[in-house]
């Protein structure tokens, strides 16, 4: 049996359950606050929140239910924010196609969200199995200058 990459949920600082449509807004506002608290620039806060909005919407639309996990990551002197979008939904059949995206005009096309998320964040990882679920892990480093 195929298993998805395992996430240790206890490692994360905050979790938001995505079940109702309003939870998309809750998730992105929460992440916005965390990013601001961590000292990210306004431009980066906007990017991070927008990425979370995309991820949360995908969960709501396709899996109906899932979670957004957020944590602060420290790598030496650097601070980064890491976000996991996790669901036990239908999974993505063709991951490469979904990520490559470009922007189709089909309403709610998955590719729409994910390719944008990848461009906004520093690191992007996805694991998905049909019938089992999807995990997306993204992170962004706080810039110092």
């Amino acid at each position, binding site marked *: 049996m195929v298993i998805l990459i395992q996430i240790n949920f206890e490692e994360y600082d905050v979790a938001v359950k995505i079940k109702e449509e309003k939870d998309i807004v809750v998730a992105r506002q929460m992440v916005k606050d965390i990013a601001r608290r961590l000292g990210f*620039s306004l*431009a980066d806060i906007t990017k991070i929140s927008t990425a979370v909005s995309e991820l949360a919407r995908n969960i709501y639309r396709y899996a109906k239910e899932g979670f957004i996990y957020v944590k602060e990551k420290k790598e030496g002197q650097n601070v980064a924010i890491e976000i996991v979008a996790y669901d036990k939904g239908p999974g993505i059949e063709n991951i490469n196609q979904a990520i490559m995206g470009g922007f189709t005009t089909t309403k709610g096309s998955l590719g729409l969200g994910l390719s944008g998320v990848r461009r906004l964040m520093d690191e992007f990882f996805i694991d998905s199995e049909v019938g089992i679920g999807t995990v997306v892990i993204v992170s962004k480093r706080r*810039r110092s*200058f």
Partner: protein
Amino acid sequence: MKEKLINNLNEYVSMLDERFGNKKLWEDFLITVAENSDDVFLAKQEVLKNVVDFIGIDNFILAVDILSDSLAEFPKDKVLKAALKIMKDYCNERDMVVKELKEALGELAVPIIRVWKDIVLTPLIGTLDSERAQTMAEKLLEFVADVRAKYVILDVTGVSFIDTIVGGFLLEMVNAVRLLGCDVIMTGIKPDIAHTLVKLGVDFNAVTIKRDLETGLKFAISKIEKGVSV
């Protein structure tokens, strides 16, 4: 250790002086070591700094080795620890200077100038790395919004080469500017740049191309005098 050090002070000082020079420096140093052997140099950082400045950190380590060889119970660990703290301070100072220099360079490299009512000029000079390109895009957009510009003239006369990554950035920046209701005029495109931009699939309907800064500026001004056209 204290007594032995004080009693034989001159001997040790001569030894170090012979090796490295500057008698007074060593005298102060050894007296301080003798005095505060519990928290060496905590109160008298100056003394240690002077020594490290004078002979450099490598020689300092050497000097400490020599001393601990000839003097049992010389507080080698404490002295080295104190020296490390001083080096850290130097690093921090230098980091701040580097940071300020970087910022200044950033400002210089990408000037954003309001050259006419509603017209902003950004002459790109030299090469842009992706971090500076990002900063530049953010600054430009804020500025355009602040002054409510109608045109941005992006002059690339000073750029002889851009890679596809920076080219992509520029494109994104142009698209972002247009979302603010501001038109972009590109001027001074050299052959290599033209090559890269076409390969990247620049939408030429989205950007007005003019040969040089003068032509671009004339165009923008005439548009503004005529009133907004869609």
